[in-house]
């Protein structure tokens, strides 16, 4: 069985409970008191010490639009009557939140890059870095198409989301999914999550939110050369808005081609050098 996440960004309220739960359970060090100055999000991005990151995407537009974000109140109760005092629901702009995490790629570029075999697929079909094997070469870092992994400076090794391997082994769901108060983060069998995602997107479409789609499933859209993700997302906007690539690719797909090209070049250069020996 393959387990994974489904992160439904349309119900995320940006509470960052998942970020905190992850840090706490996995005993990840703090990232310092850095104020980004952009928004309420001062985490910024995923890293070796931040395995869940909630992005705060602000939509300041005054006019009401049915794309780009979700009218949570209307969605919850199908509210149609005017609000008290003619208050405009979108008067102050709205937020999109998205709790980002390692995508647990079906064919993981980080795993293919790792020269020590530290990165494996475990019995839950999750991509897992064995901390006792990694030697901190850092080659997985630029290989990941989502910028998930970094090398942790004082430790030297590379870290990322383990999908709470330890908790799963004990029959528990990952800490972030457990902590999420809106069930924006769902955990389970990837096949079940696919069905839930499709149903949820259909519901959103029927309510007029035509932009909703599943990111991370090859059939529905999202990923190119990496065979999809075990961590899927329901998004309401272009992937780039959430700092995700539209069509991530498998960097190692071309290693063979590069080897062939290099071999031809090597033969040609050798021949050229041999020719220069002629008088």
């Amino acid at each position: 069985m393959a387990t994974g996440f489904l992160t439904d960004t349309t119900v995320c309220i940006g509470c960052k409970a998942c970020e905190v739960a992850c840090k706490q359970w996995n005993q990840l060090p703090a990232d310092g008191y850095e104020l980004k100055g952009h928004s309420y999000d001062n985490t910024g991005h995923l890293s070796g010490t931040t395995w869940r990151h909630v992005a705060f995407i602000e939509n300041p537009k005054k006019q009401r639009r049915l794309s780009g974000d979700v009218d949570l109140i209307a969605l919850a109760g199908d509210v149609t009557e005017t609000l008290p005092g003619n208050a405009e629901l979108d008067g102050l702009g709205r937020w999109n939140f998205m709790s980002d995490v390692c995508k647990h790629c079906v064919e993981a570029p980080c795993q293919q890059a790792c020269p020590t075999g530290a990165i494996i697929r475990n019995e839950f079909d999750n991509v897992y870095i064995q901390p006792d094997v990694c030697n901190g070469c850092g080659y997985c870092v630029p290989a990941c198409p989502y910028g998930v992994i970094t090398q942790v400076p004082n430790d030297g090794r590379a870290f990322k989301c383990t999908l709470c391997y330890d908790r799963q082994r004990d029959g528990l769901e990952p800490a972030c999914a457990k902590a999420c108060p809106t069930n924006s983060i769902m955990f389970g069998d990837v096949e079940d999550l696919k069905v839930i995602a499709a149903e949820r997107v259909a519901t959103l479409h029927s309510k007029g939110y035509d932009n909703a789609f599943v990111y991370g499933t090859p059939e529905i859209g999202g990923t190119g050369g990496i065979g999809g993700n075990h961590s899927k997302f329901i998004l309401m906007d272009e992937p780039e808005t959430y700092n995700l690539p539209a069509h991530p690719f498998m960097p190692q797909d071309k290693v063979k081609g590069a080897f062939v090209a290099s071999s031809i070049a090597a033969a040609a250069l050798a021949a050229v050098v041999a020719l220069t020996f002629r008088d």
Partner: protein
Amino acid sequence: MSDISSDTLAAGRGDQNGKVETSHHPKTDPKQDKKGYYGIPPIKHAHWTWQIPVYFWLGGITAGVALFTAVSKLVGKEDPAVTRLGRYFSVLSMMLSPVLLIWDLGRPERFLNMMRIWKLRSPMSNQSWSLVAYGNVSGILMLKQAAEDGFMGKGALPRLVARLVPDRVLQVLALPLALFIGSNTGTLLSATSVPIWARNWMLMGPTFLASGVSTGLSFISLVLNLLRTGRRDTHHTLQRAEKVMLLAETGLIVASLARMSRWGKPLYTGKVGALFIGGTLLGGIAAPLALLFSGNETRNKSMLTSVLVLLGGLAFRFALVLAGRKSADDPQAYFSFARGDNAPQPGDKI
């Protein structure tokens, strides 16, 4: 947030050119026309420090030295001075390279974990194994050289070593390994998500190899000149080979830049641009070519040429590694690359 607060805030922000993004929504926010999330890089750059480009440089020189020595043997124009240099240098290089690579590890004491497994799809793994293989062959060849040079004293053992080591076979067998090391330094960069490198996947290996061979030839020439050894015809062949190799390198670099197209921008701009254009294109290729094609060969001129080529090759590797860092840090480069058919796709031909 209102526009007023954003304008008042604008004064203190140096990094945004006075503009502040109060909100983030590319399609509805007129202040934000770029894709992405506050300009935060969507992928992470490699942490590599100076050891890596220096290793790339050393690997390239090793490939060039191996190529020249093996070919000279094959065509029957072996120069003992070159062979000797090649054998000692290979071992030196195969001792320095791992040191540089291990130095750069986050957990250097675990360097042997590279030997746990061999993955053909991981250029980093292939690199480790090829260094081990070439290092061992080089070691055997050096033993023979040392025996012949009398470093092992006199007696039965050195004579046995000198007789038993099949140097011709080994030297030819080792050549593909050395050439692989030289080209794999480029392939290693291309097998990542970094646009400028991944875009040029087909020519990264060949370009690094051509540059490596030209630095290797220059290295031989420089050492022979410094020690005032080597036959006249060897010097002459080296000069000719250097000319051709620099021209090949130029062709490959031009083709690479064309292939990188707009994702190659980091190579033309800023400090990296200065390093690449000044250090590699002008200093490391144009100037040596001009020297090589002008007038007759003199020792000083030849040495200057060699030094320029060697420095140009070093600049090339630093420029490419640094350009990759800039490329990875540029959200627009990555997003435009990972859309449409720009990035390598499983099915595509080129």
